[in-house]
């Protein structure tokens, strides 16, 4: 289904920097995410996670540095980069007056899925994410968990090679969060490169093959959860996280 073309990194951030006036929201950020790999971007509020993810999703233009999605530069070839990308934010970002079927058909068409295939792709997504029970109701009338399932289904429509998820389980109950976690794991199994930001260290420890900890726009540590724990002398990822994001004492 999601077939990686090679073992080359799918998401590449290279010295990525984004400045607002004299404040650097993302400062010289570099990392890669390979196919079939989940990388967590961990950081406190305001650390620059969302800015970094938006830079990679082509929503923001970098002040300096570069990034590629499936080999396409996000600044110079944003349309090609987006074709290879699925992006989900904290907000489910659905049209409240459209039904899931209408919304998914719209997204499929915008992603260039041929008209003859739209119905089939939408049907597959509805089946895979168990949307059938509410597929004809207005999105505005759905529960948070149902909306998140529709949002996940959106990323599945165009068979992306990379997934960027900005706090995808935020505000969800256990069942909703579990559906997201299952989706992320199945995406890894399908060979997608997954970059996700989260506040939930248990979730990060469970899901991520590697993690990058960001503080004040800069990556301060990278590695597998085990490496991060070992390097910081912590027994849990949350302790390692607190170790790295703690402000240096004057």
């Amino acid at each position, binding site marked *: 289904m999601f077939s990686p073309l090679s073992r080359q990194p799918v998401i590449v951030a290279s010295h990525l920097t984004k400045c607002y006036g004299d404040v650097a929201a993302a400062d010289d950020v570099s990392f890669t995410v390979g196919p079939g790999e989940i990388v967590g971007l961990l950081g406190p509020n305001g650390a620059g996670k969302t800015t970094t993810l938006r830079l990679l*999703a082509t*929503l923001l233009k970098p*002040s300096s540095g570069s990034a590629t999605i499936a080999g396409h530069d996000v600044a110079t070839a944003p349309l*090609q980069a987006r074709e290879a*990308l699925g992006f989900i934010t904290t907000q489910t970002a659905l049209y409240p007056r459209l039904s899931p079927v209408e919304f998914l058909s719209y997204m499929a068409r*915008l992603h260039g899925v041929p008209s003859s295939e739209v119905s089939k792709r939408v049907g597959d997504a509805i089946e895979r994410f168990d949307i059938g029970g509410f597929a004809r109701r207005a999105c505005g009338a759905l529960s948070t968990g149902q909306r998140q399932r529709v949002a996940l289904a*959106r990323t599945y429509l165009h068979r992306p090679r990379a997934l960027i998820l900005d706090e995808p389980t935020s505000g969800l109950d256990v069942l909703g969060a579990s559906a997201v976690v299952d989706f992320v794991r199945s995406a890894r199994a399908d060979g997608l490169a997954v970059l996700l930001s989260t506040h939930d260290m248990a979730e990060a420890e469970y899901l991520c093959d590697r993690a990058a900890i960001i503080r004040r726009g800069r990556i301060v540590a990278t590695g597998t959860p085990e490496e991060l724990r070992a390097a910081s002398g912590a027994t849990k990822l949350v302790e390692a996280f607190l170790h790295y994001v703690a402000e240096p004492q004057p």
Partner: protein
Amino acid sequence: MRLNTVAVVWRTELLNAVRDRRTLLLSGLLPLLLYPLMGVGFVVLSGSFLRDDEKEVSRVVVLGDATRRVTAELERNDRMNLLENAPVDPEAALASRSIDALVVAPSALDDALAGLDGVKVVLRYDPGEFRSILAARRIEDALADWNTRLLTERLARQRLPEGFARPVAVAREGTGSPVKRAMFVVGPLVIFCIIFLSFLGVFYPAVDLTAGDRERSTIETLLTAPVRPAEVVVGKFLAVVALGTGACIVNVTALLATAAVLSSEIPAVREVLPYSLGRAAWAVLFTVPTVAMFGAICMVIGCVARSFKDAQNYAAPLMMLSIVPAYAPMLPGLELTTTAATVPIANLSLLLRELLLRGTLPWAPALICLAASVSWCALALAAAARLYSHEELAFADADAPARSLFRRPPSRRAVFSPAEGLSLTVVAMAFLFYAGLLVVRRFGLVATVPVQLVMGLGIPSFVSWWRRVSVKGGLSVATASWRAIVSGFVTGIGAWGAGSLLYQFVQAPILPVLPEQTEAVRKLLSFEQPGGALYIIGVAALIPGICEELLFRGALLSCLRPFGARTATIVSALAFTLAHFEPARTVPLFALGLAAAWLAWSSRSVVPAIVFHVTNNTIAVLLENVFSTMESLSGWFLLAALAASGLFVLGLWLAAPGPSVSHAPQEPLS
């Protein structure tokens, strides 16, 4: 632009917008209810005029020595109630509306009429009261009848023909029926309703499809799909236009259906509202571009706003502004001329008056009206396409600009934000306007010094302190290269030529400066005043040159840098033009504003713009004192203006940045 992508966006966004109940209510249901209600109002109003004419009794008091004779004449009209007991204070009674008119008959009336003399009967009434106007008309008619009879008697006594005293007689035969008088009141209101309700029909979808996208974060969903922002905006715009067209069709249809129903009861309605399907089609055709323009402007507002509510707040002044030109048909003497056809909204309301109330279609102004609306619409759409995905607006996590302006930011910054720069410019312009009215008009040219200093230095400095913005960075006071300064000087030397030519060939044919204004300026800038040439140059050239540049090119232009050169220079030049409050110099002022903005933009410093402005003002003051007729195109003046324009262009060319100058986003100024 891929048309199939635009079509996909259009279809789905239209479906989404149509399901909004507010849209359906405002664009569909409201007109269907309003026009029949207006029809009922129309019937009541025309009935009221009819009743006024036929039944209203006028309460009249006749004073003076010849009361009996005048009263006898007035009593011939059976709708005249001549009060026998005159009030103690008739003037007060008239003012308090207890009587409608007062007639004072002179004492010599009987003697005068017995002979061949004439007398003057005084009629006092209140021109602000309809009943009083009606009474005055009846008294005039009654006295005119009496006058005719007396004249006939005198002519008969002298055995003269009737034409002797009145070689040319006027027989005034009014054709205005009460229905027509009612339409005189209701007609402009009908046109206003068509425009306003059609605007309402696009307002909600335009704002919902833009600001609503931000509020719901669907902008991220759309802009992470492989589509161009322009494709999304055009698709959304077409959905807005489709809804606007629908609203317009519903409005015109409801109006004409109401008129058809009314005309079966009151046949004269067909005379005052010459409806037909053809006219309805033309009305829709000409209304849709203006409605589309309004929709595009609402989309611009929606792109700037953070949420639907924010957009509503920002759009309220726009709705207020649009009301004024939509009332154009109510203004006496305002006709659909070629110039009026270029004024947005007013052109449509005047055209609809021709089409729906007068039953004519003046093709030349109609086509100009169409072209003007399409042009304004294209400009607004281009701005919306630019702003929709602008990251400063689309993905800023901060508060709405209007709200955040009232909180002092925690940290220092190098430049003003766009909201700060625009707000301080508006405040400074308002100050300039009122100070100009109150202070400068009273104390003369010298008062411009404190006014300019407050506008260009005081207000920006205060705002930079309050907003923790460096004064130097906020006002773009930075070292400029010698090349930039020289280009400012050269452009300033030649600017008078370009300004004169633009005035003569573009501005004057549309709206020229009045001779009295020219004379007033000449007197104001005369070197013969106390203080002499240096004083005048200092006050009229140096101080405004520095202060206006610090505001318009320093604060305003620099805060608009994130929007690119075109937007920043145009907005800055527009604000500069508006701040002068001189409609008859719009074109040259705008051109000079653009030139100054380009000099500041290309050098990233306000200094070359100040050099340009001061040089230009100095030359203008010198020319005012040297030549008596600046407007003259004769002889060498035209050649000199052409040569100066060459210098103007050369200066702007010199200002163009070389390949070494970076156009990367502005770095913080240290």
